[in-house]
C-alpha cells in the first residue's frame, strides 16, 4: 500500500545528516578583499576566458566573474550591499549611470592610472559621455542606440516612427515602454531627454502626458511590452511581431545570424548610450581593478568578443579589423542616420525618471 516504505531508512539517514549542516558555522568566509583578486559583475562572455587566463598568468591577479543578466538586479545588489560591496567592477548602461551615481555607488576614475586610456575609438576618446562635472566615471565598452527594427519580409520600410502607429500593424509591434516614451516625445517635437526642462516641470509634465496619451490611444498596435533583449529576439524569430523599438544590440545579433531584420534610425531621431566598466565606491580591490581595466583597453580582441556577444559596437580602437564582414555589416549605419542619434545626458535625471516611470505605469495599466 505505502510506496515509500522502502525509502524510509535512507530518508532517515538524510535527516540525521541534516543536523550537521544546520550546526555547521559559516564555513566559507568571504575572499572579496584580497590583494590578488579582482571581482567583476558583468554579462556572460563579455570577458573572454582566453583573456582571463592570460591576464592571470601575467599579473598573478585572480579574475572572478559574477554573471548578471539585468541592470536592475545589479543595481539592487550593490545598493543592498551598501558600504561593503562584494564587487570591484560593475557593467553599467548609459541610462542607468545617473542612478548609480546618484546613489553614490561609483568611484571616479583616475584616468591617469590607465596607460591605455587613449586606445578608445575616436568618438569616445576621453569618454565625454561618461564625464560629469569634470570627473570621469567609467571606461566605455560598447555603444548602442534605440532603433526602429522591422521584419523586412512583412513590414514595409519607413523613415519615420509613425509606422509604429499605423493601423496596418495592429497587434504587431512591441517596445520597452519607458524607452519608447522618450522617443515618442521626440517624435512629437518635444525634449524626450528632459535636458531643457530643468526649471519647467509643468512643461515637462505636459509633454510627458501628450506622449503617454498618444501611446494609450495606440495601444491596440502593441502585441507585448517587453523588457529583455532575448524576448525581443524571440518575438521576431517567432513572427509574433513585425516591428519594434529596440536597443541595437539584440537586433544586430539577429541580423548577424541571417534573419530578415533591419535596424534603422528614423528621421525624428533617437537616443544612444554606452555600456561601461565602472569601479565601485569602496571597491575592496581598487588597485587590481585598475590593472584589469588597463589590460582590457589594450586588446581589440576583447572589444570584438563583447561586440559578438552583445551586438553593440565596440568603443575600443581597432575592433573593426578583428570583426568579419557579416558582423561589420550588421553594425554599420548610414552616416545620415548616425547623426540622428543623441546620447543620453546626465542632466535633470530625477525629473525624467520620476515622470517617465509614472507615465509608463499608466500606459501599462490603461
Amino acid at each position, binding site marked *: 500500500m505505502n510506496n515509500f516504505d522502502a525509502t524510509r531508512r535512507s530518508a532517515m539517514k538524510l535527516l540525521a545528516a541534516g543536523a550537521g549542516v544546520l550546526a555547521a558555522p559559516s564555513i566559507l568566509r568571504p575572499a572579496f578583499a584580497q590583494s590578488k583578486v579582482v571581482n567583476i559583475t558583468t554579462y556572460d562572455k563579455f570577458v573572454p576566458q582566453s583573456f582571463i587566463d592570460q591576464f592571470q598568468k601575467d599579473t598573478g591577479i585572480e579574475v572572478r566573474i559574477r554573471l548578471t543578466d539585468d*541592470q536592475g538586479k545589479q543595481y*539592487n545588489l550593490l*545598493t543592498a550591499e*551598501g558600504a561593503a560591496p562584494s564587487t570591484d567592477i560593475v557593467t553599467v548602461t548609459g541610462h542607468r549611470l545617473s*542612478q548609480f551615481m*546618484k546613489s*553614490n555607488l561609483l568611484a571616479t576614475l583616475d584616468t591617469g592610472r590607465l596607460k591605455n586610456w587613449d586606445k578608445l575609438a575616436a568618438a569616445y576618446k576621453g569618454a565625454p559621455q561618461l564625464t560629469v562635472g569634470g570627473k570621469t566615471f567609467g571606461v566605455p565598452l560598447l555603444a548602442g542606440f534605440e532603433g526602429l527594427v522591422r521584419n523586412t519580409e512583412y513590414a514595409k520600410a519607413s523613415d519615420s516612427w509613425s509606422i509604429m502607429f499605423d493601423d496596418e500593424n495592429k497587434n504587431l509591434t512591441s517596445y520597452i515602454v519607458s524607452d519608447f516614451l522618450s522617443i515618442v516625445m521626440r517624435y512629437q517635437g518635444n525634449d524626450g531627454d528632459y535636458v531643457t526642462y530643468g526649471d519647467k516641470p509643468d512643461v515637462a509634465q505636459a509633454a510627458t502626458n501628450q506622449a503617454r496619451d498618444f501611446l494609450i490611444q495606440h495601444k491596440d498596435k502593441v*502585441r507585448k511590452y517587453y523588457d529583455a533583449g532575448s524576448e525581443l529576439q524571440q518575438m521576431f524569430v517567432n513572427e509574433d511581431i513585425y516591428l519594434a523599438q529596440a536597443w541595437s544590440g539584440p537586433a544586430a545579433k539577429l541580423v548577424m545570424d541571417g534573419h530578415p531584420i533591419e535596424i534603422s534610425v528614423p528621421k525624428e531621431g533617437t537616443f544612444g548610450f554606452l555600456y561601461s566598466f565602472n569601479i565601485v565606491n569602496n571597491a575592496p580591490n581598487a588597485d587590481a581593478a585598475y590593472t584589469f581595466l588597463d589590460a582590457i583597453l589594450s586588446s581589440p580582441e576583447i572589444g570584438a568578443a563583447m561586440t559578438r556577444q552583445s551586438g553593440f559596437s565596440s568603443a575600443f580602437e581597432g575592433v573593426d579589423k578583428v570583426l568579419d564582414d557579416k558582423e561589420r555589416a550588421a553594425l554599420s549605419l548610414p552616416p545620415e542616420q548616425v547623426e540622428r542619434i543623441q546620447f543620453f545626458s546626465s542632466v535633470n535625471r530625477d525629473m525624467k525618471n520620476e515622470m517617465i516611470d509614472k507615465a509608463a505605469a499608466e500606459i501599462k*495599466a490603461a
Partner: protein
Amino acid sequence: MLDTTTQPPSVGLSMVPHYAGWIGRTARSGLYRHTIGLLVESRRVRLAVLAGVPLVWIAMLHIGPILQMANISLLANYPPQPDKSSEYTLANYALFFSDRLYFLPFVRSLIFAAVVTISTLVIVYPVAYYVAKVVQPKNRMRALLLLLIPFWAGELIRTFSVIMLLANRGALNVLLREFGFIDRPIPMLYTFFSLSFGVIYLLALYMLLPLYSAIEKIPTPLIHAAADLGAGPLQRFRRVILPLSKDGIVSGCSLVYLTAVGVFAAPLLLGGPNAVIFPEVIATLFHGSNDKWPEGAAFSMIMLVVSLTTVGLFMRVVGGRSVRLM
C-alpha cells in the same frame, strides 16, 4: 502504558523493547534515557524541545529579513542620499490606497491567483485520483514519475517551452497551417490564455503532490463498501472521496494560491499588454530607473499582510484538533 514519570531513567532500561541497529544503541544509552525521561516528565521541557528551534528559526529568518523591509517601507528615502531627508513616513502606504494605478493590479493579482488555483484543482484532481487509486500499485511510481520529470527543466526553460508551443510560428500554429485548418497564424501568445496556460503549467505540481498524498491514504475498502451499499460513482465521490481528500485540496490550493499571488517571471514573459499584475508593479519599483525602494517595500508589506490573512483563513480550515505525536 509505560510510565516513565515515576521511575528513574536507569530503571526504565529493562523495559525498553529491543530495537535493531543505531536506534537500539541510542535507546539504550544513558544520556538518551535521561533526556527522554526529562521529556516525558515535564510538559514544559517537552514544549521547550518542540518549540525552541522552530520559534528561533521563525523569529530570526522569517521575521528578521522582513523587518528590514518594513523599516525601509516607512522611510521617506532609501538608499540614504546626502541631500534628501530620511525621516519616517506613512506616505508610501497612503500611495497604494490613493492611486488606482496600483490598486487595480493588486486586485487583478488576487483574482488571477484564485482563477488559476481553481482551474488547477479541477484539472489535476482526476489525474491525482487516477494515479493514486486506479493505477496498479506496482506502476504507481512510474505514473507519478512521468508527471514529475517535466518540472526539473527549470522555470525559465518551461516558460520558453510554452512560447515555442503557442507562438505565431510555434508548433501549434505550424501544425494547424500544415493541415490547412488556417491560413494565418492564430495569435495565442501574449494573451490571457497563454498566461493561464503557462502559470498552470508551472504550478500544477504544487497541486498534484498534496492531492496524491491525500487520496492515496483513503482506504480502498471504504470506497468498495460505499459501492456495495449501492452508491453510484457521483455519490461515492461526493460523500466518500471528496470529504476524505479535503486535506489535500486545502493544502494543494494553499500552495498554488500563495505561489500564484507572487508569481512574476511567467506573467512577464507570457502575458499581453493588458496583464500587469502586482508583483510586476513591485518589481518595477525596485528595478526601475528611479529609486523607489520605500514604495516597493510598502507595497510588498501590503501584499504580505493580505496573503497572510488568507493563510490565516486557510488555517481555520486546516487547524482544528491537535494530534498526539509522541
